[in-house]
Each structure stands twice: as C-alpha cells, then as structure tokens.
C-alpha cells in the first residue's frame, strides 16, 4: 500500500479521499490554490501544498504544479478525484513519468474512452447497444431522408463534424426530414466548414441510468449495480438513487453484463462508470451506451450505501496492485439510497451560482443519513470553483423510507448566509413525479415553475426573524484570498486557525 497520497482536488471529494487515507494509515497531502488557503480539505489532510493562484488553469488544472507538489511532498500516488484533471490522459501520463501511481485507469484507456466516436466504435464491437445512428454515405436530400426513415422517427439531424447543438434538427416524419435537411446542412457548413450530416434516433424522454464498474490489474471486472441520475439541471445531476425505479431484475442483469463487457473491451482498471440512456419502461425498456466516465463519480456514495463497500478504499487497493476486494457473487444491492447534491445556487434565477459566507451551516444526522461536505460553518464560498457544498445521502429499506429520510434531513439542514438549493430539493422530493419514480432527464425543466414558485414565509418565520434582530448568532467567517470580497466587513473578522 502507499505511504503518502497526493489528492489533486478540492472540496468534498478531497475531504472524502483524505478520510479513506486516514483509515488506511496513508498520509494524505492536500493541494490548494490561494483561494483555498483555509478550506476544509486543507484542514483535514495531514499536510498541504500550495499549487498556485485562484484561477483553476494555474492551480487545480495545472499538471506541472501538481507534479511539483507531488515531488516536494514525496507522495508515491496521486488521486485525481472527479472533475478538474481526473479524465485527462495527460495527468495519468505525467504521473507515470514521475514515478507516481495514478489512482485510476491507464492513460491510453482514458484517451480511448474520452473520444466519443472511438468509444462508440469500441462499444459496437463489444456488443454493447449504442444509439442507432450513422453518417449516411449518400448525402443527397433523398439519401438523408432514407437513412432517417431506416433509423425510425423521431430522428435527430446534426453536423457530423461537431457538437454543441449547431445545425441540430428534430425530424418526426419523412416530410419533416426533407424540409429540414437543407437548413441543417447550411448551419453545419457555416459552423464547422463541413455540411456533412449525421442522423441519429432521438431517444424521447429517456432516463439516465449508469452502471458502476470496477476492474483490477488481475483481469477481474465486476459491476456494482446501477444509479438512476435522471434528475438534472443544466445537464448536471442533482439527485441520484439506487436501485433505479425503472429496472426489472432482468434488465439490471443485462445492463450489468453489458457494462462489464464494455469495461473489459476498454482494458479498464479501477473504478469507472458506464452511462446509459434508458428508453421505455418495464420489460420493454431498451438501453443505449452514452459514455464512460473513467473516474470516481460524485454520486459514488449511493453505491456505497446499497452495497456496503468503500469505493475509495478499493480504488487505493486496486491502484496498489491488490486484487479487487470482492467478487461479483459477493456483491448485492440492499435497500435504497438517494443522494441530494447541495449547491450554492439560486434555483429561482436559473440556478445561478452564489458566493458568500456560511453564517450558519448545520448538517443533519441520524440513522441512514450521511453527509459528505467540503465546507463548514464560517467558511466563505468563493466564485472560482464548482458551487457544490455537500452531498446528502439518505438510505433505508425501501425507496419510500429513503425518500422520507432525505426529506426529513433536508428540513433540518439550515444553510444561511448564501442561497442554496435545499428548499428546491425538498419540493422536488415531495413532488408526486418523484414519489412515483416517474423520471426522465427533462423532468426538472418541466417542473421548474412549480418547484421555484415563490411562497410567503409562515408567520413563525417572521417571528423568528424579529427575535434574530435583537439576538444575533454570529460566527467568524474565514477569509479567503479572493479579490471579490475586498472591503467586506466579514473578511476583517478574526481568522480561525487551522
């Protein structure tokens, strides 16, 4: 096992990894930018190294700065967490060159799975279902329409050369396709200098269901069941759960097998996730490969809750060359878990990220409640990084028990001084669509007006405010070195020591 692990990340995931290191008797080394001098992940690690200014490009996204930090601290392994450089082959490669063990898959696997087209081709050859689509050889109007018809409507027409929604058209019938080809082609040509069109079956109101996989260096590959992540805003997940309310046991088995086949085909090692789109319900549901995430996921605690394993611990063991701690037969899904991501954002104004002081921050606790946080009361949330504050994971014997637990926990999770999505999450979990598990990736957008409706505070809240005006609860807010808060009275208050 390793002696010292550099954690190339910040926030809750860096805290999570430091905790696993401590349990394993491994020294943890945090890295921090100038904006994170007093951040929680720095306080909980055994030691910490400054890697640069607040701008991510010069700190958490700098391979050179991380390599220097690893060298200076004498680390023998590097855990990338998620986001930042976790899916950059360059980081894995640099680790190799510096004699560091990268806690993740080999660099060439990251590269292969990072290419949408390459990954799709690999999945096709491995027999994993992919969304039906092609770049028709015959690019004439008639050729495109024929291809669209063969795929089955509705069909998405888009630029073969690029993404980002440019030139994208939805055709629901032949006449539609014929009428849309021209404008799609023109837009593709102007955006990418290439009018070649790609036709793809449009999956209507899909669910996002992903399978956790884990592979070691000894040829063993297992899956740890699914997570349903259909509740998203801005294409980012906000609530995840397992089991998925949509999977039959047969479908679960088939998706698990497909994910293991995919991981094998990729030559995968360590923890990874195969994301699928799920179309339809019950025994008729079909699944299609979306992409592979070659890292630990934000929502991994959901899987930990229902399988009882420690995934970060297993990641470190596998990276150190040990065999996987479990066989497929030893893994089972027990009960239900729901994760809510707590963000500093304002749902009523388009989920705009928020910055400010955590004047009061109290985490819920109790049976079946886990909170992984990257902040503590008195911290200041800055503007430079992802506004994820914490993850609340509620688990119980059934989905309904887990849902009620999550709700009760959200209602005793005061975060004051900055706007968060806590109230929004309560409403979402209370909504009949969630209660019934009737989810798809567009459901949050559809429900947005009711989930963000303004409501008058109860009179008790006003009475509470009246008493707050006389008797004030004050905490010293830790200052951080960001220019945006210069002159703010909070930053001049006493600093808390490490």
């Amino acid at each position: 096992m390793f002696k010292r692990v550099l954690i190339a990340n910040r926030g809750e995931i860096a805290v999570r990894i430091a905790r696993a290191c401590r349990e394993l008797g491994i020294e943890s080394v945090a890295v921090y930018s100038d904006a994170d001098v007093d951040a929680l992940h720095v306080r909980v690690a055994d030691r910490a190294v400054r890697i640069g200014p607040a701008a991510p490009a010069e700190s958490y996204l700098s391979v050179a700065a991380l390599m220097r930090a690893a060298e200076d601290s004498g680390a023998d392994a590097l855990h990338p967490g998620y986001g930042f450089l976790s899916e950059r082959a360059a980081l894995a490669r640099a680790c190799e060159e510096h004699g560091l063990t990268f806690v993740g898959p080999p660099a060439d696997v990251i590269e292969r799975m990072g290419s949408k087209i390459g990954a799709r081709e690999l999945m096709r050859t491995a027999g994993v279902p992919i969304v039906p689509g092609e770049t028709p050889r015959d690019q004439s109007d008639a050729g495109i329409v024929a291809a669209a018809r063969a795929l089955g409507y509705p069909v998405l027409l888009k630029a073969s050369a690029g993404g980002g929604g440019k030139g994208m058209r939805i055709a629901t019938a032949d006449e539609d396709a014929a009428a849309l080809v021209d404008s799609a082609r023109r837009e593709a040509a102007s955006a990418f200098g290439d009018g070649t069109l790609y036709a793809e079956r449009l999956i209507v109101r899909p669910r996002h269901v992903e399978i956790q996989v884990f592979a070691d260096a000894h040829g063993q590959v297992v899956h740890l069941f699914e997570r349903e992540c259909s509740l998203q805003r801005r294409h980012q997940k906000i609530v995840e759960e397992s089991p998925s309310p949509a999977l039959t046991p047969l479908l679960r088995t088939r998706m698990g097998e497909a994910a293991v086949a995919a991981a094998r085909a990729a030559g995968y090692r360590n923890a990874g996730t195969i994301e699928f789109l799920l179309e339809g319900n019950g025994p008729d549901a079909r699944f299609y490969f979306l992409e592979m995430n070659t890292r630990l996921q934000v929502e991994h605690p959901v899987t930990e809750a229902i399988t009882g394993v420690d995934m970060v611990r297993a990641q470190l063991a596998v990276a150190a060359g040990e065999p996987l701690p479990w066989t497929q037969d030893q893994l089972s899904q027990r009960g239900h878990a729901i994760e809510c991501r707590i963000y500093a954002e304002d749902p009523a104004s388009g989920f705009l990220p928020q910055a400010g002081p955590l004047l009061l921050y109290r985490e819920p606790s109790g049976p079946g409640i886990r909170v992984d946080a990257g902040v503590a009361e008195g911290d200041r949330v800055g503007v430079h990084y992802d506004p994820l504050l914490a993850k609340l994971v509620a688990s119980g014997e059934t989905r309904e028990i887990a849902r009620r637990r999550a709700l009760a926990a959200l209602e005793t999770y005061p975060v004051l001084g900055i706007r968060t999505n806590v109230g929004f999450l309560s409403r979402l979990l209370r909504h009949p669509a969630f209660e019934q598990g009737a989810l798809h990736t567009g459901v949050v957008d559809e429900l947005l007006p009711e989930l963000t409706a303004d409501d008058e505070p109860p009179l008790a809240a006003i009475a509470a405010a009246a008493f707050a005006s006389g008797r004030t609860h004050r905490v010293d807010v830790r200052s951080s070195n960001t220019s945006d808060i210069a002159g703010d009275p909070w930053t001049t208050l006493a600093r808390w020591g490490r």
Partner: protein
Amino acid sequence: MMLTLVYGDREYRVETTGDGEARIDGETMRVKAQRDGSITIDGRTGWVARDADVIWVFWDGRAYEIQERRGSTRRRSQSHDGSLAAPMPATVRRILVGVGDAVARGDVLMILEAMKMELPVRAAAAGTVRALRCREGDLVQPGVPLVDVA
C-alpha cells in the same frame, strides 16, 4: 418593541415583548431563541442568522431572506432595491431587455458568461426595467448592479 420586517413586497408589523412573545397580524406566538442560532416557536424549531442587511431564516425546510426596516426611513433598503448583480466576475453576452420593458418574475433579462457557463439573469419579481447598467461585452464584477427592475 415594534419592528417592521419586509419580505418581497410584503411588510409585517411585529410586536415583541421581553418575555419571549411575538404578535403579528393578531396572532401571538411564544418564541424561545437559543444561543446556537436556533429558535423554537410553539414546539417547532428553525434557525436564524443575520448579516449586515438581511436576516436569514430557515423554517420548515425553506430559507427566507427578510429585511428589517429601520427607524423612520421610508426606504425599503439601503441597497439598490430590485437591482440584479452578477454573483461572480462574468462577461455580459447578451442583453434581452430595454429600459421601459415590462417583465414578469423569472423572465431572462440578460445572459452572462462565466466559468464557461451561460448564466441567465432573471427578474426576481415582476416590474419595469428602470435602468441598464452594463453593455454587451462588458466584464462585470460581483455585487455591481447590472439592471434595475422596479
């Protein structure tokens, strides 16, 4: 003691007594404030915290930002009331409204770009656009008003 508290468009006249009673709209409540920031009213508990302008209250799973109107001043608040500001350094991509436009709550007024994300600035309440304080392409700093809606 009489206090005037403001939430959105509504004002509340609250009378508090030294022995922990609050009267609002003819209703009397027993209030017990704890030193940890929690407040118990008729058996239910919430949390409060105050910074310069705003009293933050967490009650029944929701957070409310309530303002206190001080003294005899008739102004609703010292800050630009109804003005919207960027939460972080951002570039103004597009401005979608003009001065004099009527807007509904939730209408997108402008699009900012920061951290490679497009951030819509939405009207927090219905009103009329009184002033635009930025132009497309401007780099704007957090807290600086971009548009006034009243």
